[in-house]
Every structure is written in C-alpha cells, then in structure tokens.
C-alpha cells in the first residue's frame, strides 16, 4: 500500500490512501466520521431516498484497512453514526459485520456531535482517549498538543480535483471523513485556517497520499 509516513509528537504514523491513520508501533488504526446510517436518516426525515449501500461501502474499506494493517486497536473518532437512531436502526447484516470487525481486538468509540450516546455494539465508549503522546477526540480544541481529531471533513484541491485530506501541523492532526456519503469542508474555510498553524500541510487521499502546503 502507498502510505504517507510522518512523525508527529515522536509517534511514527502512516496516513493511508483511504483516509485512515495507522500507528504501527501501537498496532492502532484510527478512522473518523464514518456516518453510518446516513441514508436511513435522510429517508426518515422525509428527504431523498439515497442508494442504501453506503454502510457496506464504508465497511468494505474499513475491513480492507484492518486486514492490511492487522490492527489490534481500532479508534472510531466520533460521528461513527449519523445519529443515535441510526446506530440503533442498523440493518442486521451491517450490525453483524461490525461485530465481526470488532471481534478479537480493542475497539474504542469516541463520542461525536452526531452520536453522543453510547451505542449497543460493545467496545469502549469515551469522550476522549490519551495514548502516550497522542490524544484522540472528535472536535479539535484550541490549545491542544498532540491532538488527533475529525469532525470538519477537510478537503483540499490540487490540479483541479478536490479530495478529502488530512491536515497536519506540529500540534494537531485533523482526519478526513472516512464514510462514503460525507461531504467536505475546504481547507480554506476560516474554521480550519484558524485552527491550523501557518506551516500546516494537507495530505490528500487517493491512490497515493499526496502532501501539499495546506491551501488557505
């Protein structure tokens, strides 16, 4: 797999083409903003009936990343479900699939703004988790150091194509959304330019992750 390897607060990390973050020394895989159940939530709220395949598509990619990295710990960085009702209403094949992925490894659900409550799928539920030099939480905080978060769905444009991306500076990482039906927020948005240091990089997802200076 073509990964982008970099050092962050003394941890050696790999950013994967899919948008997942791998920490080989800890056997840890981190993904953010899966938004499982999004199509069901749209339908429930009398919106459009989207193709109901996004959970399988997301889980197919997650399964591939877990298999490729042989991760023993998986952290889902919040907004794993589009809302609490979506978590409760997962159809059976999807719920079973998640259970299979969770079996035999440590699994941490970080709370997000879409899914504040604990889910009934097992695993550990936390609002944040600190491991060595890194702290995992859903939404970035102003003065954090060594923080890994998600929430913003950052994306950046290069050569005329916008792609989801990782934002990285010396203090923090912001992961792209991993879920299939997730829009993105340009890295040029004030919400992101205010958070990230002037020398921040954006690493674009794609066949081979591509680092560029963060467009701002």
């Amino acid at each position: 797999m073509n990964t982008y390897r970099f050092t962050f607060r003394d941890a050696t990390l790999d950013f994967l083409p899919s948008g997942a973050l791998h920490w080989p020394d800890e056997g840890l895989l981190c993904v953010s903003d899966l938004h499982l159940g999004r199509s069901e939530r749209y339908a429930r709220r009398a919106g459009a009936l989207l193709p109901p395949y996004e959970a399988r598509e997301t889980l197919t990619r997650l399964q591939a990343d877990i298999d490729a990295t042989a991760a023993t710990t998986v952290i889902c960085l919040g907004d794993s479900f589009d809302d609490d009702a979506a978590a409760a209403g997962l159809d059976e094949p999807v719920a079973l699939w998640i259970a299979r992925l969770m079996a035999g490894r440590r699994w941490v659900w970080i709370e997000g703004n879409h899914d504040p409550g604990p889910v009934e799928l097992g695993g550990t539920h936390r609002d944040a988790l600190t491991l060595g030099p890194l702290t995992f939480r859903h939404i970035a905080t102003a003065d954090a150091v060594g923080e890994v978060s998600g929430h913003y769905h950052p994306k950046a444009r290069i050569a005329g194509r916008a792609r989801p991306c990782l934002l990285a500076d010396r203090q923090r990482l912001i992961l792209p959304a991993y879920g299939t039906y997730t829009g993105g927020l340009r890295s040029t948005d004030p919400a992101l330019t205010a958070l990230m240091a002037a020398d921040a990089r954006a690493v674009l997802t794609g066949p081979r992750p591509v680092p560029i200076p963060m467009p701002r």
Partner: protein
Amino acid sequence: MTALPPEIDSWFAAKGWHPHPHQLEMLARGGDPATLLVAPTGGGKTLAGFLPTLVELTENPRKGLHTLYISPLKALAADMRRNLTGPIAEMGLPIRVEDRSGDTTQARKKAQRADPPEILLTTPESLALLLSYEDAPRVFANLERVVVDEVHALAESKRGDQLMLCLARLQTLRPDLRRVGLSATVEDPPALSRFFMAGGCPVLTADPGPDPDIAMLTTTAPPPWSGGGAAYAIPDVLEEVKKHKTTLIFHNTRAQAEIFFHNLWLANDEGLPIGIHHGSLALDQRKKVEAAMVAGDLRAIVCTGTLDLGLDWGDVDLVVQVGAPKNVKRLVQRIGRANHRYNAPSRALLVPANRWEVIECQAALEAVLARDLDGDPRGPGPRDVLCQHILIAACSAPFDADALFAEVTRAGPYAALTRAQFDECLDFVATGGYALRAYDRWQRLKQRADGLWQLRDPRATQLIRMNIGTIQDTDTLKVRMRQNRKQLGEVEEGFAASLTPGDTFLIGGRIVRFESLKEMFVDVSHDRGRKPKIAVFAGSKFATSTQLSERILRLIHRVDLTALPAHTREWIGLQREVSHLPQAGRILVESFPHYGRAQTVIYGFAGRGAMQTLGLLLTRRMEEAGLGPLGFVATDYATLIWGLHPVEEPAFLFSRQDLVDALEGWLSENALMKRSFKAVANIAGLTPRNFPGTRASGRQATFSSAILYDTLRKYDPNHLLLDITREEAMRGLIDFGRIEEMLDRTDARVDHVITDRVTPFAAPLFLEAGRVPVEGAGREALIQAEAEALMREAGLA
C-alpha cells in the same frame, strides 16, 4: 371569416393596422381543441394567440382565470404583460393581465391564487409549482385556453417535457381546455405538433415571408486557421455597425462574446454606444442593456442565445452571426431578429471565425436560401422528468396510479410510455427502487387502504416544491466588486477555484482582478491594461448538425468553388493535391509525424460531441494495441490523436462491435456520464439542489453525486437512474448516435493517407484548444509533480 368585435376592430383601425391572414385564421379556429401556429419571427404570433381570448372576453366578460400564457423566458412573460395591458386599456376591455414567475413576490403569488386574473402569463416552472398546491383544481376551475409561446425552443429541452406533463394535468382538470402553440419556423411541424399534443394536432403555417438578405462578411484580413474569436473581423464589423441603425452581434458562447466585446471596444474610436448581453451577467446589468436597447440608445449589442427568443428589440436592421452557426434552423431564427416586421427581408451577415468555418458558413447560407432546415428527431420523454412529475402530483393530492398513468400518456412526449416504465418510476419515487429494499419504514410515498398514493410525511412538500424544475445551472459563484459589493455576474465554480489572487479575467466586457473567494462570492477589483485570463462560462458548445455536415462535404467536392473566397479555394485545392478530400461515404485517416510524435487525423464529420467521444474510444483501442496514445483534440469535423507510435493499418479502429464494447467499458468511469447522472439525480429528486435554509449550508450538507453514481454502479447496476443516465448520455454529451450514423454512412470504409508532413486540412487542428490528455497513470503523475513543486516552493520538501 370571424368578424372582430367593434372595440377591437376600431382599435386596429385607429392604429392603421390590419390583422394578418393567419391571425384571423387563428380566430376562426378559436374553438378548436388544439392548433400549432408556425410563423416566422416578427409574424405577430403572440397577437394571433391572444386574439381569440380578447374576443371571447369582450363578447362575454367574466371573472376568473380564462387564459394561461406560458413562455420559456420570465422576461418574455413580463414584456407580454406590458404589451397586452396597453392595447387592452386602449380598447377599454375589462380584462386583468398579470405575470407570475420566480421573481414575483410571495404576497402577489398568494393573491393570484386566491383571485386569479383573467389572463395569467407565466413560465413552465411556475405552472408546475401552481399545480403542486392542493387548490390547483379551484385556481384552474374556469380555465378555457392555454397559449404556449416558443414551442420550438421548449421542445429542445426537458422544460418542454415537464410543460407537456403539466398541460396533460390541466386537461384532466378542464377536459374542454383548448390549447394553442406558437412556434418559429421548424423543419418538421407535424412532429412538433405530436410533441405539443399526443397524436398530433392541426398545424397552421403562416406565409414565411421574403428570402433574407444574407451574405458572408467580406473582410480585409483573411480568417485565421483556427480559433473562435473572429478578432480579425473587428474593423469590418465595426464598419457595418456604423452603416446600420441597430446591430445584433450573435456569438455561440459567452466567453467568445466577452472577448469580442472587449476587442470591439478597443477598436471603437468613435465611442459608438455598444452593449453586451448574456446569461452570466447580473440581472440588473442585463436589464439596463435591455432598456437602453428598447429606447434605441444602443447601436450594437454583442449577445448569445439569450437574445434568441421573443422580446421585441425595436429597430434591429442587421444581424451579425460570429462563428459558424452549427445549425441552420437556429440561424434562420436569429436572422429573423433583424427587421422585426412582417414581410420585410431580414439582413444578416455571417462572420466565419476560421477557415473551416468559411466552408460551414457558405454551406449554411445556401441551406437558408434553400429553406432546408435541419434538426434531430426528439427521443421519448425523459423519465427523470416523469419522476419529478409524480412527486409534484403527490404534493397536490393523493393520486390513483392508473389515472395518473393514463394522464401522463396524454402528454405528447410520453404517448409511448409503457405501464412497466411508469411503474418503475413510481417505485423509484416511492421506495427508491433499490434492489436492496431498505426503506420499507421510510417510504417517500405510501399506498393507502383505498389504493391512492400519498406522501408519507407531509413535511416533504416543502423540499419538493423548492426543487421543481429541470433547468440545470452549473454550479456558479457570484462575482462582485470588493469595494462596493456591486454584483457583476457569475462564473463557474471550477473556474473560480482555478484563480489565484492577481489573476485577471473578463466579465461584462471589463477586466477585473481576482482578490479572494469569500463564502459564495468571488471578490474582484478593477484592473486596467493587462491581458485577461478568460472566464470559462457554461455557454453550450453546439455540434454542427448532421444535415449541415452533409452540405459541407458536398460543397468541398464541387467543381466550381467560386462561392468561396480565394484563400479557402486554394486551401481546399492543396488538400486535394497532398492528400484526399474527405467524402461522405468513406472515413479519411491521415498519418504523419509532427512535433516528434506520430499524428493520426480522422475525418468523421460527426459533430464535436461525437468526434470527442470517438477520440476517447480510439485512444483506448490504440492503448490496447500498444501504440502509446498521449492525447487528442476534436472539432466538428475531425479528431487528431498524437502518440508514440504511428497507426499502420487504421481499419481495425472502426469495428462497430469493438467501439460499442469500448464504450461500455469506458462508460463506467467517464466524467461525462457522471455529469449526466448529476442532472438526472437532481431532476428525479434523488439529490435536491435547494434546501430549506440558506444556500451555503445546504451545499455543505451535500456530497458529490459522483459518489452516489459510483455506489450505484457497484451495488445496483440495473437501477432506474443509471438506465436514464445511459440513455441520456448516449444522445447528449456522448452523442454515440452520430458515431453510429458515421459508421452506417461509411460502412467503415477507410482511406488511409500516409504523408511525411502535416496536411492542409490537418494544420488548423494543431492550433485547436481543448486538448484532452489520455487519462490514467498520467493524471497521478501530474498531481505528484505539482505537489512536489509546491512543497519545494514552500520549503517543506
């Protein structure tokens, strides 16, 4: 002959006017269920359409909506209100006329529903919206007549299909409703009447008037080999403007109109008042130009298709068409804009932008004089529009599927719709129509115990009403001056994203400097004296029609070429000597080295879209054959492919089965397919464009329709929307029909000419813009290279 009531008769007399024969004939047919009137521009069509209404309301005054007038342009509806209220007041008739469009205030709209005027002027979208309300049966309870203006234009887009569905709805509400269609000159009036009314209706053809006075502009400088700007002709066009009262200067794209206008200003030493008008300009800018035009303050207007329709532009005495007209019918309609008077010849000049267009212009003007119009037959009514119509029906009231199906097939475009197709659309609207039946609990439509279908959640009506319509704007951003926030117009989002601060571009004829992209605005400042980058507007690139392409092929084979200017005659002669002249019955392929690459030119004369698709298909075949194609460029006539190795024996490229197979494989990943899907998904209601709340927040909540497309292809490849998308792309952007037509006409007979240098006909292709790199590993390499450069520049590498 029907006599006019005295009020109307004396009004005509007071004006010194006489009704045209076809106007009186329309009055005589006033009681017929449907009539299509075909008359040239300036033939008094609209009065012909309204005369029966005025007579009926004069003889039997009454309250309530009597006549609905529908035009494709908001401005036309408003203009019509002014044009009608004047005479109605002068005749002293007790008739209220109002217009209704997206620009009408909410309060006004409400009042119109509560107490409709006798004559309501509106657009297809506003009518669809009116029909989505529960009170539609009451609003239209007394409707007697519908007048549809510019039927020929509506028939070319999905707006027409939607309108025909709405007319079928109205006819259900009012079985005795009479309809009148007004159309400019078209190639096949009976076919248009079958669009207008299932089974067709009587056509009344007005006297087409005298032949137009049309010629190619003689210029001091010869046109360039390639390009579309026609800058070489500026001094000569300016001379013509001086000789005439008012000149309309038509262009095929907005970008070309902008550049031409800019150059015209630079050459306009006498400071003649000249304006510009196109669809990307801010509304008040356009209105200003329109007002100046009507007041006779302008000597010329540089414009695009936005001035093709309807509005009476006063004293236009010359039409200039810059660039090849591509399509004879549209040219005839444009020419009619000059001398907006019945039975007066229109004067028009064609300005070819390059050598190929000299030939095309000559072929087109011969076709105009022969009254030989072109046009492609319409396909069946698109099913995404039907899906939206089912949603609209559900908004207004619970419906019976059998009754709705029967009603839909009474609309011309859907006359051949099968029940199975209808049921598939209904299933899509109700359940999503997925192989995985995921939405049993959350269906959009539910069937009640009595068999009627209704919305599961009545709150859905708001979202549906906000998204009525079939017009697909590309995503655009407003351009405004940074200092005073004055809006100038719009540019495509993709173009805006490509700008860096300091870049300059043309908009509304002035050069502006890009400052920043804020929220939904492109902030710019004035900039003088620099060479602008060009705004990439959405302006459509038409393909040269089949009939016109045939004429061109016949023209170049003529023994006597004196109709063409000397420079073009010599060029054609040289091509005959060095290579072959392309023929209708054979595909000419030329191979020669140039720029260190193996060059292959295919003369297919199938129109730009098809030649572009052919480029994609052939480079794929060449890739498989190990020829290392690197890129291609397509025009209406030819495709030029460059690569590492020459094509030795081109016949293998044109096997129909191979092309079809390549198309199938290549379709899945194609950007054109995704673009078609986006429109289909919007119209069918899968991905609403507008959300309650602000536009920006709505946009952030959306995700790319390309993801939905990929997901569907992977998990549900037989889904209805993919089927609609394929059907549409084959006809539209991909235009595979024209490739098949080329294969039929040539039977894949190939003439292969191998030379050691560029041939005369191939030379312009090397200057053509719009080169397409062959996708794949190349794209990733490009991204990597640019990223590395950026990192180095930032000192991060």
